[in-house]
């Protein structure tokens, strides 16, 4: 296990190098020159040159790449080009709001998805199963934007159950008042694909020999499903959840924008709009590293949950 872990960690190096090169060249080729954005409405070539010098974008590519590499290794990405705020500070202050929405969202949607998937897998082929699958297909085909617009209109505006948007001071206020509708939207969006995916995991297990054996031995259906099937189906489900995590943090920008949640996803969009390379760099590297780490964790967890798994 240790050797496997070390080998996987070593594989991080070329992957990360590839990501660094890709981000660097993408920004320099298609990212746009930030100096023109920062220079304001009226600027002369001298002003532009001064800004480029200060940002370091007038340096040869090799030097810029070396600086980027040092930033990745030290974890210090400097300050935002447009607001001067330290990138580390941006992460520190935006992480809380993102997690306030994403942790309950992920927990509730996973649990609901598992419960519903187990039920329809158990009732496979029945009218309920078919109805749920049709509903899931329809639900999955609808854009997240539609969910946001409709839920905001109905639950916040028409019914007045939630504020349309906002962010308060206390954690309880943010979780129960301001994040509630965003969490509900997130659950509604993720439930359909989760149920469909988890159903296949459950069906795989239900058809296994050990389930037939357990039933033949006279074990109750509840025990078969809750103890044996659930435990084995949980392995790919946990893996799936773990692999979703890194991207979720930066990818919830639509929910954060519409509900006024000052999280990381919203900050990423702002950074892209402003060509704020330090933030874009930091987020991209974070997503890459987190994806690799969570991949490794998922593999190790596989082994921990199912001793039959052999790590090569």
């Amino acid at each position, binding site marked *: 296990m240790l050797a496997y872990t070390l080998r996987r960690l070593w594989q991080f190096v070329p992957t990360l190098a590839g990501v660094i090169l890709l981000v660097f060249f993408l920004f320099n080729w*298609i*990212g*746009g*020159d*930030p*100096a*023109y*954005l*920062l*220079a*304001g*409405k*009226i*600027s*002369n*070539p*001298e*002003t*532009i040159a*001064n*800004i480029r010098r*200060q940002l370091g974008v007038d340096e040869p590519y090799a030097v810029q790449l070396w600086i980027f590499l040092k930033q990745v290794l030290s974890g210090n990405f400097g*300050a935002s080009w*447009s*607001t*001067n*705020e330290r990138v580390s500070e*941006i992460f520190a*202050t935006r992480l809380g*709001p993102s997690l306030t929405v994403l942790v309950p969202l992920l927990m509730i949607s996973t649990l609901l998805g598992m419960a519903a998937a187990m039920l329809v897998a158990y009732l496979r082929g029945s009218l309920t199963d078919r109805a749920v699958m049709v509903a899931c297909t329809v639900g999955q085909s609808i854009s997240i934007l539609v969910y946001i*617009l409709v839920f*905001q*209109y109905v639950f*916040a*505006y028409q019914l*007045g159950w939630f*504020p*349309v*948007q*906002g*962010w308060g*001071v206390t954690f309880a206020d943010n979780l129960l008042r301001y994040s509630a509708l965003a969490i509900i939207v997130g659950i509604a969006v993720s439930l359909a694909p989760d149920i469909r995916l988890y159903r296949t995991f459950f069906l795989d297990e239900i058809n296994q020999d050990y389930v037939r054996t357990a039933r033949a031995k006279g074990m109750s259906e509840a025990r078969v499903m809750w103890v044996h099937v659930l435990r084995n189906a949980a392995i790919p489900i946990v893996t799936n959840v773990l692999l979703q995590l890194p991207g979720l943090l930066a990818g919830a920008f639509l929910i954060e*924008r*519409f*509900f*006024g*949640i*000052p999280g990381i996803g*919203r*900050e990423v969009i*702002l950074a892209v709009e402003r*060509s704020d390379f330090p933030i874009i760099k930091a987020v991209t590297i974070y997503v890459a590293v987190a994806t690799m780490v969570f991949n490794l964790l998922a593999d190790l967890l596989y082994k921990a949950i199912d001793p039959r798994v052999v790590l090569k």
Partner: protein
Amino acid sequence: MRLAARLLALVALMAAQAALAQPESKILRVTFQAAETGFDPARVHDYYSGMIIEAIYDTLLTYDYLARPAKLVPNAAAALPEVSADGRTYTFRIRKGISFADDPAFKGRKRELTAQDFAYSIRRFYDPKNRSPYAFLFTGKIIGLDELAARAKAGAKFDYDAPVAGLQTPDPYTLVVRLKQPDVNFDYVLAFPLTAGVAREVIEAYGEESPSHPVGSGAFLLKRYVRSSKIVLARNPSYRGKTWDFDPGDNARFKQIAERMHGKRLPAIDGVEISIMEETQSRWLAFQRAETDIEYQLWEVAPTYMTDDGRLKPEFVRRGIQLDRTVDPEVIYLFFNMQDKVGDAPNPVGGFGRERIALRRAIAMSYNVDDQIRIIRKGQAVRAQYPIPPGVTGNDPRYTSVIPYDPRAANALLDRYGYKKGPDGYRRQPNGEALVIRYTSTPTERDRQFDELTKRSLDSIGIHMEIQKERFPEYLKAQKQCRVMMGHQAWIADYPDGDNFMQLLYGANIHESNNACYDSPEFNKRYERSRQLHPGPERDRLYHEMTRLMETETAWLLTDSRVRNSLQQPWVVGFTKHPVLHAEWLYLDLEPKPAY
């Protein structure tokens, strides 16, 4: 169960009593549709940060809230500046007894606003380290400061203590500014919110964090700040206060405002709570749910709440919603690159030859501005005829553009000047070469609409158009390098004087603000003359001639100026959108909200 119900009723009763015992705070709730960048005046990039800065800091001059066109009045200055006979020396007398809000940087002492603070603020625009986007307001104007900036750009630290001939403070309440050339607009510059007085010890204490630690002497102070999300301002207890005493003139709406506001001590509200909401739907629903008090711009959903003739729909009138409708001090225009070449390639729309002028004119005549206003602006814009928009000194409301929408005449013009159609149905240049117009825009939904409208226009006169997409920074870069053959651009007033607009066509401003790269000797001559003149008939005559010249040579097609529809809840009193002031929060009041 019964006990729980009783307890709940008791809690509700106590809460109601507490609410009755305390007068309701007057907190104005508004939204910004884009995130701020920070509140350090010399470093600000965006309009919304400027609104906060205007609320927190004091400028030397400001604008009369109700005078139209906008009129300067003293603010931190005791009076309007004394200007020397040669127009090069401005002397400001600072009002005594103005204090900054308390801050740890002042180490427990009350800190008075002085002339040195304004001199320091002006110097900060020249400091290359600040990368000030508004440095152009001062660059090349004040004697000695450009030289100081040049030394800093060469590697030395910017010397804030070096004596500068053009910026002197003989005593704490006198600021003397000496200009290299007379500049009739210089007093407007000192009403711009970003030129407000900042305390040097605050900037030095917070260093790179200064954008999130604004300390001013204005009506409000920063109480709570969650970047890109929430900005809460509270009334500044150190603020000297003002009395609402503006003259409404003959304007009926202003008279109503004056009736309700006259004599009130300002600020009349206790604070402002600003939420950053990028999405129109969120802002519109929040306003309808009375979660916000003023919505500055909701033109995407204007047909939902407005009739075609620009009035509020009856259901909103019944709810007491108020509408303030003003034309933004801006012009939007379609520009042509006037240079002979775009990069290294020949430019088919550039130059001053007759056939090139005919081509530009034909393109301009094929462009349906009414469609732009109806479809893209959803009716929330007015046709721009003159380069200086309404509400800005120098605007000529009687001027009519000489470029009509007339595709048939445009086709005839092209035929006459030898732009013959080829077998593919598209016109060729008079020399027989292919004619392809490259139109540049950014990859946004709004610009896609402009692409379609422009393409349709050029198709109607048989001209082949290619669309080139550039991200916004690259689009700006291409404009400044005269590499955009044709594109749309908007310009909003930095100060309410025609010069701020006419300079966009001045030859010396190529690579700076003149994105058409227009360099007409006749235009330049008149512009240089206009710079020496105060607003008046002589300058207006020159502006008129310059506009005709520009239209004759067709460097631009003026299209529109957007209408700003500010919606207010029934309890907002005294609000009207000022054409130049960023935020009007100091001048309005809130009445008690009805209990729903």
